[in-house]
Every structure is written in C-alpha cells, then in structure tokens.
C-alpha cells in the first residue's frame, strides 16, 4: 500500500470585508480519518469548497507528498462530498456510478435496497436515498483522498453504522477528512481532530482543547 500525505495550508477566504478564514490548515494521511470540527459559520465547508475550486479563494496551498497540486484537476486526487446535492437531477444512478468508475452492483451488495434504483434518475430518489448514493459514489471511487462534508446528515439511523464501517474500511488504503456538527459522530470515526476557530485551524489533543476554542462547554 502506498502511503500519501495531503497538506492543505494557508487557506484565506474573504467575502467582501468579512474574513471567514485567515489561516486554514489541515492534513490527512493514508490509513487515517481526520475530523474537522467547528461551530456554525466557522468556515469548515468554506475551506473544502475553496480547496476544491468551487469557491473564489484569496490563497490556498494544496500538496500531496510535498508536491503542489494543480487545482484544475484536483478531482483526480481528492473526491469531495459536499454538504448539498452534488448529482444533477436528471442523471440516472447507474450512469453516475459509471462516470465515477464504480461498479453499481458492488454498491448494491452493501445496500440491497438500491437494486431497484439502477435506472432511476436522482430526482426519483428521496433526499436521504440520494445522499447515501452520493456518499457511496464518492467513497467507492478511486482517489488517494476523500473529503466528506457532513456525511451522516440525512442518513437513516439504520444506515449510519454501515456508513461508519465503510469509512473505516476505505481509510485502510486512503486518507479521509470528515466534518460534521456532531462531535460524537466525528469522534467515533476519526483518528485525529482539528478545530476551526476565529478563522484559524488548530489540532485537538483533548476535550479541553475543544472547550478552550469555544466548540464545547
């Protein structure tokens, strides 16, 4: 197994006069799940959207194994599950899997309910069904790193454990960054944690750090 290290550094995002991020930083390594915590509006999603090229950014440095990444083709290195709907409404589910190079039936093996959605368009699925399909699409496709923005939102409680298992399984040969509002959801799956506060990212070593940064009381 090849080990890789992703470093995202010096992320600066401003909306007009408002500075959302002044020193965003996060790392990820093959074989590890990194959790990113932060209060609402702290800039967690902003950081990911910025590094993936979906948001205008003042500065961002992304490197894998010390080599800077061309952000025009960042999707080849990092697959990103955004917070909102990613798949076009009209695309058939099997077509989306084909484009991402994922075998649809391997996904059905994990979630048998989806065997009947093979020819369904995304708009025919419920919000939760579409969310689970998108999550698996990202996690089962090939890339050294995955970033998952609130992967547990909209997922049935019965599937949350399966998603957790899938994340742990995929992190054996990949690096995964996960963010969520829910501390318990993240801490149960992550090997190390970062927190965003006042535009800066800091590593979390203990629960006290989260209290110090105003994330927990």
């Amino acid at each position, binding site marked *: 197994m090849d080990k890789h290290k992703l470093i995202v550094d010096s992320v600066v995002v401003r909306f007009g006069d408002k500075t959302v991020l002044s020193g965003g930083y996060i790392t990820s390594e093959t074989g590890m799940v990194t959790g990113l915590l932060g209060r609402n509006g702290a800039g967690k999603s902003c950081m990911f959207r910025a590094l*993936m*090229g*979906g948001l205008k950014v003042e500065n961002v440095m992304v490197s894998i194994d010390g080599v800077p990444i061309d*952000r*025009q*083709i*960042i*999707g*080849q290195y990092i*697959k*990103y599950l*955004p*917070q*909102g*709907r*990613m*798949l*076009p409404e009209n*695309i058939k589910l099997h077509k989306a899997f084909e*484009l*991402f190079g994922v075998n649809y039936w391997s996904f059905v093996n994990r979630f048998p309910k989806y065997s009947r959605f093979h020819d369904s368009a995304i708009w025919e699925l419920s919000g939760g069904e579409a969310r689970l399909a998108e999550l698996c699409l*990202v996690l089962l*496709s090939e890339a050294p790193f995955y970033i998952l923005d609130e992967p547990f939102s909209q997922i049935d409680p019965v599937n949350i454990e399966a998603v957790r298992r899938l994340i742990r399984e995929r992190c054996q040969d990949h690096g995964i960054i996960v963010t969520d509002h829910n501390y318990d959801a993240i801490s149960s799956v992550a090997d190390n944690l970062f927190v965003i506060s006042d535009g800066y990212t800091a590593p979390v070593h203990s629960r006290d750090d989260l209290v110090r940064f105003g994330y927990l009381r």
Partner: protein
Amino acid sequence: MTLRDRIYLTWSYGKIQFLVGALYNIVCAQLLTRGFSYSFYIDAFILKAVVYAITYYLVRQFRGRDAIFFFINLGLSRRKLQLSVLLVDFLFLAILLTTVMLKHG
C-alpha cells in the same frame, strides 16, 4: 474518461447556455437571410457576448451551489467547462452565419 463522457458532461453542465445560444444563433441566421450586411455580422457577435454573459450569470444564480462538485470530482474544472461551452457556442454562430452569408450574400 472517454471523449463521449466528456461531451456528455459538457452538455450536462452547459445545457441551458447551449439552448439559449442555439435559439439566439437561429434568430440571427434568420435575420441575416433577409438582408446581408457586414455590420450585422459583427453586431451579432457583440450581442452574442452580452447574451452569453447574462445567461452565464443567471445559470450560476439558479444552479445548486454544490452541483459544480460533480464535475470537479470527475476532473473537470469550472473554467474548463465554461471555456468548452463558450467555444462551441461561438463556433456554432460563426459557422451558421458564414453558411447563410455564402448562400444569400
């Protein structure tokens, strides 16, 4: 990614812009058949740029903010996709107007 996939994704990304652009191109070609002038040919391109910019702005406003990540995940940046849409759209106008001009000019 195959060429077919790339064409499919470009169409999927720029569908509305392609359709508005095609409608504009057809109207221009129709007007050109009624009477040719070089100034019309040039004006058609200037107005095309304005229509293109407005359509681009509106599509960005109404598209889901995370929809772009479908394309980015597949290795296609917004810049690359937009450039493809722009090239195809303007090329189509140029071919259509030149064909009409040669036929009726």
